[in-house]
């Protein structure tokens, strides 16, 4: 959120040129590295204190890896991440532990994210034990009850095991665990994707309520555009390991400035039947190129309906677009800005993934 006095946003988490590259290894005993999978490839992103930032993009575009890298749950291979001013990539043991208290994570599949052999109380109390919060059996038990109540569960269920709960209830337990250390920042990694639709709404509203009640900063990772639009203050769009458009939720939703965002938004069905019938869909051709063979220049150019001359040669940088302040996109349609590239990158032939080829 923008602080009213200065107008400059108060940044809690910030990524600059963040890269997470995984080596692609051949099988066999020698395990030679045969390539690089660029899951996150030069991401610049700010999360403002107190906001909900929605991160959207199709499967495999690196959303989850980015969320994990911001918390150093996946080690970044390049670039920097700062959390409240501190460099996350250079944190020592102790600082890292404090980061883990201040930044929580809610996972996609509530059936996988809770240890089946531990009771709800044990799961929710884990952060308390790790960080030495609320010492003493009584105090911990009281805090666990409080947390369960906070996420809308009956505190009487503390002694139960996860398999006795429904998906929505388990996800509430996961949220309670993430909140136990009183974090400032919560990464919700597809937190509603594997829930029933009716339960999705409940959990979504729970997250909104908690955010307001506790003053949380939320990174809401999802491929569900309507959910993201519902909860987010700002939206960031990711494509093939790069953030390609960021802006206020209303601006990105109403006037997307990058062809990929437009295509993504046009895929959302409309509830009104008449509007739905007249909805113009932009259907992208071809598949997403493999993150181990990223096209040169603009990485969206192989599927872009508006591709033109500079696209293969200049890697576009984020630049101000549209009318809303803080709305940026990486697209040459708004002026050619970016870094010129060698077209002959060894791991990215010019025609990689070209659907026309």
């Amino acid at each position, binding site marked *: 959120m923008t602080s009213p006095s200065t107008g400059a946003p108060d940044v809690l988490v910030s990524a600059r040129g963040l890269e997470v590259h995984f080596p692609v290894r051949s099988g066999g005993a020698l395990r030679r590295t045969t390539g690089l999978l660029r899951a996150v490839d030069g991401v610049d992103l700010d999360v403002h204190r107190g906001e909900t930032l929605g991160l959207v993009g199709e499967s495999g575009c690196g959303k989850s890896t980015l969320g994990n890298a911001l918390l150093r749950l996946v080690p970044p291979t390049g670039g920097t991440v700062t959390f409240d001013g501190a460099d996350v990539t250079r944190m020592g043991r102790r600082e890292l532990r404090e980061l*883990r208290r201040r930044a929580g994570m809610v*996972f996609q599949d509530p059936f996988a994210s809770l240890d089946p052999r531990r009771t709800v109380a044990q799961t929710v109390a*884990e*952060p308390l034990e790790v960080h030495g919060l609320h010492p003493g059996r009584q105090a911990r038990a009281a805090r666990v009850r409080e947390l369960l109540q906070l996420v*809308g569960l*009956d505190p009487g*269920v503390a002694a139960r095991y996860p398999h006795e*709960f429904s998906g*929505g209830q388990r996800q509430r337990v996961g949220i309670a665990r993430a909140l136990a250390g009183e974090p400032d920042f919560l990464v919700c990694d597809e937190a509603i994707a594997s829930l029933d639709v009716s339960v999705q709404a409940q959990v979504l509203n729970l997250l*909104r309520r908690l955010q307001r009640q506790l003053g949380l900063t939320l990174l809401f990772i999802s491929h569900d555009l309507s959910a993201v639009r519902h909860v987010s203050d700002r939206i960031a769009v990711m494509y093939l390991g790069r953030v390609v458009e960021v802006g206020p939720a209303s601006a990105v939703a109403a006037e997307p400035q990058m062809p990929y965002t437009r295509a993504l938004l046009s895929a959302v069905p409309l509830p009104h039947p008449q509007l739905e019938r007249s909805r113009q869909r932009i259907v992208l051709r071809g598949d997403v190129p493999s993150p181990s063979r990223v096209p040169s220049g603009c990485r969206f150019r192989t599927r872009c309906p508006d591709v033109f001359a500079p696209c293969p040669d200049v890697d576009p940088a984020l630049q101000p677009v549209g009318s809303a302040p803080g709305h940026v996109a990486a697209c040459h349609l708004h002026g050619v800005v970016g870094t010129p590239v060698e077209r002959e990158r060894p791991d990215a032939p010019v025609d990689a993934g070209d659907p026309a080829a």
Partner: protein
Amino acid sequence: MTQLPTPGATPAAPPPSEPLPTAAPPRPRWRETLGLLARNPTAAVSAVVLVLIVLMAVFDETLAPDGPNDQDPSLQLQPPSWDHPFGTDEFGRDILSRVVLGAATSLRVGFLSVAFALVVGTLIGLLAGFYGRWVDDTLMRLMDVLFAFPAVLLAIAIVAIRGAGPANAILAIGIVYVPIFARVTRASVLGVREEVYVRASRSVGASDWRLITRHVLPNAAPPIIVQTSISLAFAVLAEAALSFLGLGPRRPNPSWGLMLADGRGFIDQAWWYTVFPGLAIVVTVLCFNLLGDGLRDVLDPRQRTLMAGGGR
């Protein structure tokens, strides 16, 4: 804009279609485990039999009708009778007494060698599986070297270096089983390590040690428990093999394996000589296996609820 429930009030009560589980009885976990085990008839019977065998081993001197080495040349290789229910051996010794007295030796060798293999092997498997990379490579290649030797040959080598005797037999059998536990544990850990709940636990700041002891080991345990029960069985047999080769407990003191080995020479004249020590081994080994299976089920919370709910 969504309706926000007022903070403080218990918000967003789940719809009635999702009944919340009722509060658990405040019974200690181990009591509950024992209770559930008692409802599994096979495991319960096995446990009782094993307790009896252990008691027999502990009070062997009191229980045995004769001394283990009381010879009576007039009673050589007598078939089972009221005086000697299990018959006698080639020196006229009472086989029942020797089976009772041999229990202590066989069980001690079995328990201690498996305990050694369990502790060392599980630790190696945990480290190799959890840390991967060079830790995995180093430890597991070492295990491969141990595995490459035929078990008996390795045991003979160890006993040859350290000298014969029960203590070294235990060590030898223990070392032979270390790689098996290491492999079983590692394989199990490799699966558990990737579970989301391990990552979730890391995300709240849990240390490696905590991850390993609180999450990885308990979830990787079932195959290890089963392996333990199987190994106890094999260790009793291995003790027999080593004794047979003169590398374990020494004659004339009885052990089941030794008796089996000695009886082999008379199997066409005196079936009871091998059958009764053999039965003792079979019953013990079978009980270990059945108890292991039962334990594996009972230690799984999902099975637990099923059993507690539909329990007989």
